């Protein structure tokens, strides 16, 4: 095959420097080059999508979908339906920055924070992420367990399923293979939309809620803050930032691919918003059937409750959706853990390496999944509390991650002319302030109530 004359700037590099990781990435890039040169637009899009859709649909994870369904079952259609769309619009703004920094610098978020701002900040970022990822992964396994409980399968099957999936996807030693398997699974997040349609909601009410943001939920101030914080935590989280930037670099995106990277992120955000709304609408079928009292993370949770109200079809689809949502998130969150750990230590972090060449990356990815799977098998472990608080904790830790993201996206030396514009900065800063206020308000209010100070 004739090499391109304009494919990139690596022609001056010494051939002896081509590692297996370089070779794998160049094969992927050669397909992108030929698709672009041949004007095959749809094939080019197919080759370049991935990190954005996976970050967004990965965040439509088990706990998030249960959280949306709980909101629907408690309050019905109303403020939180369009609020899901708003939060995914916020996520698109944040994730576009990650994709852009990854494509321009070819380096992961953890690596850049560590090298640009020093060891202290790099390690803080990595420790935050490892902690929230472990908590979130436990919640994912709980969600898989809830879905499988509908089919009378136990926690052992849930733990085994997640771990086997992680090992299977990692076994190829290729980013492309890992990404395509995860994408193939992620598309089944659409099961929540199918469940919503089958639950036969009043589409007029859905449309009215979307336009008017009403009715506004009643109840206590603390409950409202918890719902706001967990809805934000269900759409914008630290792992997504680490994952999309590292995956964009690992995939080999370049500044020429920014348009497709943006399309990938927007498609992911749009699909996730639609499917998230689907979970809320399906949950709303339980509003007048004691929906507020359903424990979504215990037993067969929502699928079990939906069977009596909306029929076995809706319940089965919702249960399968929970298994899918948890499984995809187990893949993406464990990968983001691997990227963060390897980048913090300063060793190779790529799915294009074999486990022998990136031992720490593969070990961290596998170990965090194994640890979370092990915890759900511990009798008496406080799984429900962990799962309920996972999204809130992610929201509380998010502002630091986003501030560094904005700093990297504005770094003139790294980003050159592709750094943030003033309008992008205004929007991003507004998002950081909003997220910080919601997370802090919930944390402080809950603490004061727990300690009986208010």
């Amino acid at each position, binding site marked *: *095959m004739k*090499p*391109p004359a304009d*494919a*990139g*700037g*690596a*022609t*001056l*590099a010494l*051939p*002896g*420097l*081509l*590692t297996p*990781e*370089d*070779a794998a*990435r*160049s*094969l992927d*890039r*050669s397909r992108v*080059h030929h698709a672009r040169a041949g004007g095959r637009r749809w094939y080019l899009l197919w080759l370049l999508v991935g990190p954005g859709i996976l970050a967004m649909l990965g965040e439509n994870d088990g706990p998030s979908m249960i959280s949306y369904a709980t909101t629907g079952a408690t309050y019905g259609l109303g403020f939180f339906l369009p609020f899901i769309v708003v939060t995914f619009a916020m996520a698109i703004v944040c994730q576009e920055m990650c994709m852009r920094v990854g494509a321009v*610098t*070819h*380096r992961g978020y953890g690596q*850049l924070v560590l*090298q*640009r*701002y*020093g060891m202290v*900040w790099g390690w*803080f970022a990595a420790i935050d992420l490892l902690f929230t990822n472990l908590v979130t992964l436990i919640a994912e396994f709980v969600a898989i367990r809830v879905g499988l409980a509908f089919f009378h399968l136990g926690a052992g099957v849930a733990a085994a399923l997640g771990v086997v999936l992680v090992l299977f996807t990692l076994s190829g030693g290729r980013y492309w293979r890992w990404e395509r398997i995860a994408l193939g699974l992620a598309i089944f997040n659409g099961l929540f939309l199918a469940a919503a349609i089958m639950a036969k909601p009043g589409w007029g009410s859905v449309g009215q809620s979307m336009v008017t943001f009403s009715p506004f939920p009643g109840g206590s101030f603390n409950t409202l803050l918890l719902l706001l914080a967990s809805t934000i935590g269900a759409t914008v989280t630290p792992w997504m930032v680490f994952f999309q930037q590292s995956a964009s670099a690992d995939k*080999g995106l*370049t500044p020429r691919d920014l348009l497709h990277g943006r399309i990938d992120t927007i498609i992911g955000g749009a699909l996730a918003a639609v499917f998230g709304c689907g979970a809320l609408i399906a949950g709303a079928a339980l509003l007048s059937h004691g929906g507020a009292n359903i424990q979504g993370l215990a037993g067969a949770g929502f699928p079990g409750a939906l069977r009596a109200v909306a029929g076995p079809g809706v319940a089965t689809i919702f249960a399968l959706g929970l298994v899918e949502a948890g499984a995809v998130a187990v893949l993406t969150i464990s990968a983001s853990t691997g990227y963060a750990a390897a980048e913090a230590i300063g060793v*190779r972090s790529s799915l294009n390496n074999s486990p022998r060449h990136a031992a720490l990356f593969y070990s961290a990815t596998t170990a965090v999944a194994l640890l979370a799977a092990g915890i759900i098998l511990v009798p008496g472990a*406080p799984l429900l*509390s*962990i799962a309920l*608080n996972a999204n*809130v*904790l992610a929201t*509380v*830790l998010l*502002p*630091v991650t986003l*501030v560094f993201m904005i700093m990297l996206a504005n*770094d003139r*030396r*790294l980003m050159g002319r592709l750094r943030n514009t003033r309008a992008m900065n205004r929007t991003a800063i507004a998002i950081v302030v909003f997220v*910080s206020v919601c*997370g*802090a308000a*919930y*944390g*402080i209010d*809950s*603490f004061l109530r*727990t300690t009986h100070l208010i």
Partner: protein
Amino acid sequence: MTDEELITYLERDQLVADKERPVPRAPLSRSATLGLWALRVFVIVVSAMVIYTFATQL
């Protein structure tokens, strides 16, 4: 494809050898450093509150 052909599809700074070269440290102003520490302390305090609330729910 040979290594020579393959390498042309990558940008120079996409090569592993180049990516392993650290980027220089960014100068942070005193106010930026103070702001980051303030944010860090704020996040740790709020996280501790959330964890305390979680622990009391057990």
